[in-house]
């Protein structure tokens, strides 16, 4: 309970700061939209291959957009050495991790809620009934991305070229998550059901649970190293 209370305090503070600065969410939103238009004009996707190609394009857009958000995740804490103030306080490091990961998840979810219908329209996807299930898969993928991303963002926080190093460290570790999300999205777009992709869904959920647990347990070591 203490962990959740402290995490919600950090989340409240980050949301308030983002509401005033509007730097991360606007950058992410415009970049995500821009990528969709680029993909739309670059790829002439035939109707019979839509289910195979479009999930990868959509998830790629979300990954790049999310990386932008992650790069700025600890930027605010570095101003005025506020991270030191958090570390000095009686705050559980796991709570700091959960607070930061939830903040990034909320930002990405906001962008996804706006970008996904746009994607539907641009790529002429007719099966609107599949959208809620697709949102479910995307949110599970986003959760995994945010927990691992927060961990890596904290690890590379003091690196000199952190914006360059972060994707290099993050994406190789993200491969199981990327594959699982794309396979699940593909199955839903094709048939409206998971079918054979149920195993990928289990991998996706397992990835989320494992890295959320690992993050809470080792964030103390990561942030103070």
């Amino acid at each position, binding site marked *: 309970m203490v962990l959740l209370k*402290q995490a919600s*305090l950090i989340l409240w*503070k980050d949301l*308030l*700061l983002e509401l*005033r*600065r509007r730097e991360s969410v606007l950058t992410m939103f415009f970049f995500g939209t821009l990528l969709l238009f680029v993909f739309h004009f670059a790829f002439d996707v035939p109707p019979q291959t839509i289910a195979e190609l479009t999930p990868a394009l959509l998830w790629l857009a979300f990954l790049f957009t999310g990386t932008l958000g992650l790069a700025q995740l600890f930027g*605010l804490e570095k*101003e*005025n*050495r*506020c991270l*030191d*103030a*958090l*570390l*000095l*306080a*009686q*705050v*559980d490091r796991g709570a700091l991790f959960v607070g930061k990961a939830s903040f990034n998840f909320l930002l990405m979810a906001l962008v996804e809620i706006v970008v996904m219908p746009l994607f539907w329209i641009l790529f002429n996807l007719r099966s609107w009934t599949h959208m809620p299930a697709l949102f479910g898969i995307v949110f599970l993928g986003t959760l995994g991305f945010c927990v691992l991303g927060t961990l890596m963002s904290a690890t590379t926080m003091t690196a000199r070229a952190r914006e360059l190093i972060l994707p290099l460290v993050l994406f190789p570790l993200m491969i199981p998550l990327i594959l699982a999300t794309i396979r699940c999205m593909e199955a839903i777009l094709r048939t409206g059901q998971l079918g054979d992709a149920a195993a990928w869904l289990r991998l996706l959920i397992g990835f989320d649970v494992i890295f959320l647990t690992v993050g809470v347990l080792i964030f103390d070591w990561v942030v*103070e190293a």
Partner: protein
Amino acid sequence: MRLIVRDLSKAYGLSWALKDLTFDLTAGDLIALLGSNGAGKTTVLKLLAGLVHATSGKIVFDGKPGLRGESGERSIVGFLTPGEHLYDNLTARENLKFFTALYDRNCSASEIDTALSDVGLARRANEYVAALSSGMKCRLSIAKWKLLDPVLMLLDEPYGVLDASGVELLENFLCDHCAKGRIVIIASHHLERVLAISSRAIVLNQGKMISDQRRQQSWESFKTAVNDCLRMDPNGGIDKQREGKNGRQGPAPSLLV
């Protein structure tokens, strides 16, 4: 309450920022941490605050090893560095609200208003910290630590940004804090000011403690003793290295009272 520091050392890369620092502090101590730039004062404060890891040595507080570890142990340390540890895009009131809640000292709105009023920020309570001057930010930090009431209070060069009333406010806060049986350590170059309220002065030179003076006699003799230490090199003689390099003796003139 007792803080024991034994053989505390910190190396950054190949150079030692601090070497074998040893001292004991008890409740009510107000310590001046003195020395020229690069002497290791801020490193000592950061080590005590648990913000950096010691290369070797130990810190024991009330019989427990270190000030880190369990989250409960961290809450006892306050660290005041002017203009830092505050969020620019939160208002003065929001900063106090956030930090008091984070330390699980859920202060009421009236307590926060009183703290702001005590430091002369009642009218600026709803302004963003970014809009406050450096002195006002320092006053806000004082209000923050007044509310949080840490057992060990560390201050890194707090005088530079404060006006006369701000200095008085700070010194009253520190003296009241010590009177409550807390420990205060101030790293500063403003010798006249800091020695006036200190009960003890620890002088560092190139990461080593060269003097530990207690205020047992008059303020004048205390000041003279500390000044004498600042003029000396770690070996007890005149700083030959400085003399050789710069053609003058002793530490920088700004350090002397």
